[in-house]
């Protein structure tokens, strides 16, 4: 399992209300419209403004990878086969302007996420809701989406076209946030969204580069047991260089003492400095987000159609150099399983091609000979040219170097970031051997294994995520079976078993799971880092 998430407070004092929390970020909050947001669990900053039917549990470690009720009274009431889900709203829910939140607003918010003008959100609703695929959003189709019913202002019912036991996870996404139709300004809504959460937006400059949030007086602690909302205001400054963020946090002078970052890891160069400084080391939060970086194969391309070739590569890979390439053992854990090492995903340890920490070139050579290549092969590895990227040149060259020892000559085929993405997700252009990674939309095996290995999800004329183009009826059926389960614990166990089964086919070679190491300011108290997000939860932080 994952090492303990180091979520210790920097002081023992009790958290208290007041003050301003500063968030120093690299990426601007460009998508701030609830319909366009994709972030898992609603994202760190957005979830301060948008409440959703359910939300993630705000707790340290594994506890934090569970779903909790938010606007709804519980995490959802499924029908027997998990195709109909019903939610009831809590009492006393209000927007920032004091008006009451109704289920009609939630339905409207969901419908908005279908509009072409507001593209960018997750595809699940479209795939799962009855009639979702054809629906064009409320601007074009004012009749609305019939599969979302609001029998009264406090009840909302979802009709799905197949069993989905994990619907409560989906309901954490911001498309489930209420949007009052009268206040909808379409593409401009993000400039001033109507808050249902503990903070309202005072300023949104340069498309999310600078956000200022202030306490929403109409939010009541009584209806929200997840968000703490200690600071009176929150100032999010984005577009900062990662080195700047880390330097400011480590110096921590002035306002920076009350600052955190939600998107910037300590870089390798900075780690070298932090490890030598005790005081600084105590201000580093370590988190695990469910993510796996791996080598992918397209078994339609020679010689990767030969499982032995794929296995030889699995044996040859030196995970130590790979991990070093992304910043060393503090920033990545070596991976042999496809699922991240967290119980919620159904992690089941296995290593079908054991090669130790640094690879086993001898074994690899032998397997390669069995495959019919006693004199080695020359292959081309496609990767992203973006430097310091998990699929970037550093990792690619590490793989290249390790495979050399096994007689596999690797030519590097670097692609621009965008071109790389376009290429590997295009069935007809997909290279045979490339680097990629996957993070689930919520901490469960479903969104981890489904999109990647479900043969029915191979997209021929769009973005395809079933990169291995695996269409194994047994796998497909097992996915369907697990999806029916509403007992998430039981589901997790079966996901783990499925992972092992797929792993033995060597359609991927897992490389590592990234680890988040993030600094926070001196005045930051009540640090909570869940395994869901892997980052410090700013709804829990206090600066007083």
């Amino acid at each position, binding site marked *: 399992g994952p090492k303990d998430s180091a979520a210790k407070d920097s002081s023992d004092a009790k958290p208290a209300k007041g003050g301003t929390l500063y968030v120093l970020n690299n990426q601007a909050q*460009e*998508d701030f419209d609830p319909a366009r947001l*994709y972030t898992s669990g609603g994202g760190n900053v957005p979830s301060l403004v948008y409440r959703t039917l359910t939300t993630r549990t705000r707790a340290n470690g594994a506890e934090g990878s569970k779903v909790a009720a938010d606007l709804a009274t519980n995490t959802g009431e499924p029908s027997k086969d998990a195709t109909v889900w019903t939610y009831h709203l809590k009492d006393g829910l209000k927007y920032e302007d004091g008006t009451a939140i109704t289920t009609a607003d939630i339905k409207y918010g969901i419908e*908005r996420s279908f*509009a*072409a*003008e*507001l*593209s*960018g*959100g*997750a*595809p699940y609703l*479209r*795939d799962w809701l009855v009639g979702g*695929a*054809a629906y*064009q*959003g*409320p*601007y074009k189709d004012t009749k609305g989406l019939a599969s979302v019913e609001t029998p009264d202002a406090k009840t909302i019912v979802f009709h799905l076209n197949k069993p989905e036991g994990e619907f409560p996870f989906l309901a954490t996404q911001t498309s489930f946030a209420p949007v009052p139709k009268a206040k*909808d*300004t*379409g*593409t*401009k809504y993000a400039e001033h969204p109507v808050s249902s959460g503990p903070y309202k937006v005072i300023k949104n*400059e*340069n*498309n999310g*580069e600078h956000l200022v949030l202030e306490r929403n007086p109409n939010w009541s602690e009584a209806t929200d047991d997840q968000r703490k909302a200690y600071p009176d205001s929150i100032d999010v400054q984005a*577009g*900062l*260089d990662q*080195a*700047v963020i880390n*330097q*400011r946090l480590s*110096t921590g002078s002035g306002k920076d003492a009350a600052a955190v970052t939600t998107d910037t890891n300590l870089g390798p160069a900075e780690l070298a400095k932090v490890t030598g400084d005790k005081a600084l080391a105590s201000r580093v939060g370590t988190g695990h987000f469910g993510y796996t970086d791996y080598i992918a194969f397209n078994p339609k391309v020679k010689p990767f159609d030969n499982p032995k070739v794929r296995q030889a590569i699995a044996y040859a890979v030196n995970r130590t150099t790979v991990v070093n390439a992304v910043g060393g053992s503090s920033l990545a854990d070596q991976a042999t399983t496809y699922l991240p090492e967290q119980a919620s995903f159904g992690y089941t340890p296995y290593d079908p091609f054991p090669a130790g920490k640094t690879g086993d070139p001898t074994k690899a050579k032998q397997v390669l000979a069995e495959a019919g290549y006693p004199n080695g092969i020359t292959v081309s590895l496609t990767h992203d040219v*973006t430097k310091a990227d998990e699929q970037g040149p550093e990792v690619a060259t590490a793989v290249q170097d390790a495979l050399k020892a096994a007689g596999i000559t690797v030519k590097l085929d670097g692609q*621009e*970031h*965008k*071109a790389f*993405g*376009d290429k590997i*997700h295009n069935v007809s252009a997909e290279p045979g051997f490339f680097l990629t990674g996957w993070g689930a939309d919520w901490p469960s095996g479903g969104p981890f294994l489904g*999109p990647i290995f479900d043969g029915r999800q191979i*997209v021929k*004329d*769009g*973005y395809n*995520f079933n990169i291995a183009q695996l269409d194994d009826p047994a796998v497909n059926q097992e996915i369907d079976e697990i999806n029916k389960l509403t007992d998430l614990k039981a589901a997790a166990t079966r996901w783990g078993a499925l992972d092992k089964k797929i792993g033995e086919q060597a359609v991927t070679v897992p490389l590592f799971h990234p680890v988040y190491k993030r600094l926070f300011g001196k005045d930051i108290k009540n640090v909570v880092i869940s395994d869901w997000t892997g980052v410090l939860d700013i709804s829990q932080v206090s600066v007083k």
Partner: protein
Amino acid sequence: MIRFLLRRTVSAVVVLLVLAVVLYAVFYLAPGDPAQLSCGPKCSPAQLVQIREQMGLNDSVYVQFWHFLQGIVAGHDYSTGTGTEHCSAPCFGRSYRTGELVSDILVAKLPATASLALGAMVLWLILGVGTGVLSALRRGRPTERLLTGLTLTGTATPVFIIGILLLMLFCSVLQWLPYPTYVPFTDDPQEWAWNLLLPWLALALVESAKYARLTRSSMLETLAEDHIRTFRAYGVSERAIIGRHALRAALTPVIALSALDLGSMFGGALLTESLFNVPGLGQKLVQSVELKDLPVVVGIVLVMGFAVVIANAAADVLYALADRRVVLA
């Protein structure tokens, strides 16, 4: 003068149009689907179709290009879903990725770039002209040799090396300055200057070398001219000759060149912006090129082209104002 301006305007429009066509063509040829960019990675084919329609990507390139030009000249109305949003006249469309109006991006990024460029120019003029005059004054002496060596070193150093060294020195070793973060002038003028100091210095050190050489060589050239001989023959002191006559002549090309440099600095200081994390046009351009965000790229490059064309004309006008013998044509 009017004729000159008119002609300049026409040729500027031609240049910009050529630029727009070239960029448009280049990026149209580039691999990658804008609709995909807008929709995000996990986008269904049906959704893609809708978005293509919405973005007008189903029209032919020519039609798309025509719409683009129309937007620049007459503005464009966009549907926000609930209503329409007007993008007023120089409308470069909206970002494929974020849906933002490109004009808004430009307006947002311009202050940082302008701060960088203007501040650096002031600094490089002071440093460059000062060094140039000094080395002309001390010609033949060790000071001149030292200064010549320094300026040669300056011209030979890539700006990012100077930048890294400055960061190393001031932020790491001496710790006199914070790692620069851009603070808008309107927020806090003092912080603004303090944070821009290093990027200014980096640009100025590189650019001033050029100016020092230009100042020095045109001063020396002027000093070899006949009219200088006249003033020498009339007992005018060397100091007055250099300060009044040689400097006056040397300033003309310096002024004109700095107008040009200022122009290309508007978006041209890519390396400096990305090294010092100045959120300006250059940085945005690099990011947008990587993402193939065509409207943003075209918008920024056109603005840069515009700046340079204006700078060119300004340089010519300045030149003519400074030197009445030049006829504008």
